[in-house]
């Protein structure tokens, strides 16, 4: 089991008036090769949760395991853990600092202590993987556009060749075209054999891409399961400030109007097919 979390509770600044319970007994499992979506409203604890995936936030022993390694133990080799779990934070373009794109991408591999030839190979591969032009390598990251900067930042994490990639709102703040491209990129990374965890609050995005979802509300897991299983709870999701994909809403309205729409459909193709079946009189 690549990531296993058992009853994780996290309290910020305990014992002060600023005390805040960010996570409360959160348990989850992520299997090899899965595409997991973590959804929640702002402040629901999503970012705190993913910070536990590679030990940036520590917990008690026996709570967070990555590939069987207990991240709560004091003598766990954190660099080794970070080699396995790549973490791309929200707005990662703000973490760029080097003179050139290539040097910035090389930062992670260099910290892993790889030799120069291997670093060069990984940088070239990461640049290609995120769809940047090879000529961008020698440019300053600060010259690039916002979307390109974000690709550089993602390349910087991919160059560490993690087997689990965690992305916090990778499409936040991008225009519709940039958004589509970014999600395609995440999809292609998953297709190349990486286990992907994506934090988002767009139900449409996670519904289209993810195998399983975890819905966080006020630091607790409200729902988990396949998108179809989660989107059945549309009323409750609405109450906690979330939504279901547009197609699921349409399907529900049609069902309420008396049409024969199966429960839990949310993909555009499925809804389309169901509508066509109704139009053709159930044939």
């Amino acid at each position, binding site marked *: 089991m690549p990531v296993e979390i058992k009853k994780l509770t996290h309290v910020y600044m305990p014992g002060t008036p600023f005390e805040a319970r960010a996570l409360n007994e959160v348990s989850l499992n992520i299997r090899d090769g899965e595409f997991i979506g973590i959804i929640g409203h702002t402040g629901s604890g999503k970012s705190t949760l993913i910070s536990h995936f590679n030990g940036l936030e520590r917990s008690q022993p026996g709570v967070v395991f990555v590939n069987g390694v207990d991240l709560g133990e004091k003598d766990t080799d954190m*660099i080794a853990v970070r080699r396995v779990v790549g973490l791309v934070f929200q707005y990662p373009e703000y973490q760029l600092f080097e003179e050139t794109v290539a040097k910035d991408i090389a930062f*992670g591999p260099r910290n892993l202590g790889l030799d120069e030839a291997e670093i060069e190979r990984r940088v070239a591969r990461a640049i290609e993987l995120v769809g940047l032009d090879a000529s961008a390598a020698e440019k300053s990251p600060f010259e690039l556009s916002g979307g390109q900067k974000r690709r550089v930042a993602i390349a910087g994490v991919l160059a*560490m060749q993690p087997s689990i990639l965690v992305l916090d709102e990778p499409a936040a703040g991008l225009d519709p075209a940039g958004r589509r491209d970014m999600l395609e990129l995440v999809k292609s990374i998953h297709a190349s054999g990486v286990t992907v965890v994506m934090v988002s609050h767009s139900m449409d995005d996670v519904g289209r891409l993810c195998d399983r979802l975890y819905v966080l509300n006020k630091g607790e897991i409200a729902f988990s399961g396949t998108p179809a299983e989660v989107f059945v709870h549309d009323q409750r999701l609405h109450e906690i400030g979330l939504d279901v994909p547009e197609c699921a809403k349409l399907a529900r309205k049609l069902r309420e109007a008396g049409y024969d729409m199966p429960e839990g459909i949310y993909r555009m193709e499925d809804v389309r097919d169901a509508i066509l079946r109704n139009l053709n009189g159930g044939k």
Partner: protein
Amino acid sequence: MLKNITLGQYFPGDSLIHRLDPRTKLLATIALIAIVFVSKGFCGFLLIAAFILACAASTGIHLKFLIKGLKPIFFIIVFTFVLNLFFQTGGEELVHIWIIRITDEGLRMASFMAVRLILLVVSSQLLTLTTSPISLTDGLETLFRPLQVIHFPAHEIAMMMSIALRFIPTLMDEADKIMKAQKARGANFETGSVVARAKAMVPLLVPLFVGAFRRAEELALAMDARCYRGGAGRTRMKQLKYQTIDLLAALAIAALLAAVILLNRFGPF
């Protein structure tokens, strides 16, 4: 790790001291610092310490926050203590090992200086822990206003201070985020030699500076868009007004000063 800095951190509350006019608190703190310097003996210090502790207790702020604030200057306190201990030569000799001589005068002086430093820091901490940064700068601006006659830019300085204070938590948050992001890429900020650790700060500082400049530009634009043009003719929603408690505070400080002066003259130690 960055969340543990308390020096200058406001602690919300509704005690008498919280409700004092910021000008009163500023002046009282300055007076308190002066009183610490006026005191010539441990008797006076004892009284001042009792006064500060009573104030702190009335605010409901846990003592550990005051002690935590001493951490950054712990080294300075120890350094002063050691320096005074070894280099004060007057008085009766207590210990003499090789070239190290410790005299009773030295011991007295060393503890005197250390206590004085601690009292100075704790009293100014009481101010920042009980006063929100906004009201602190408001108070400063009002106090400095008479100096405008000699072209002292009171408003501008207060504005700069409030902007600086306003952005400390923002920048700390950002530093925390960048640090996490670089740690996720295998960066190591905690171990290694001094040079290695200084080098490790580059991936943190460059994005932090870039971000600070970006924010500064955005803020300037936002202020401009709301027609900010300096302090001239600016009115404020919350007017500062002295109240009875401010008078009481002034009287308490005056009483403390008188007591310390008396103790200087008649105190047993």
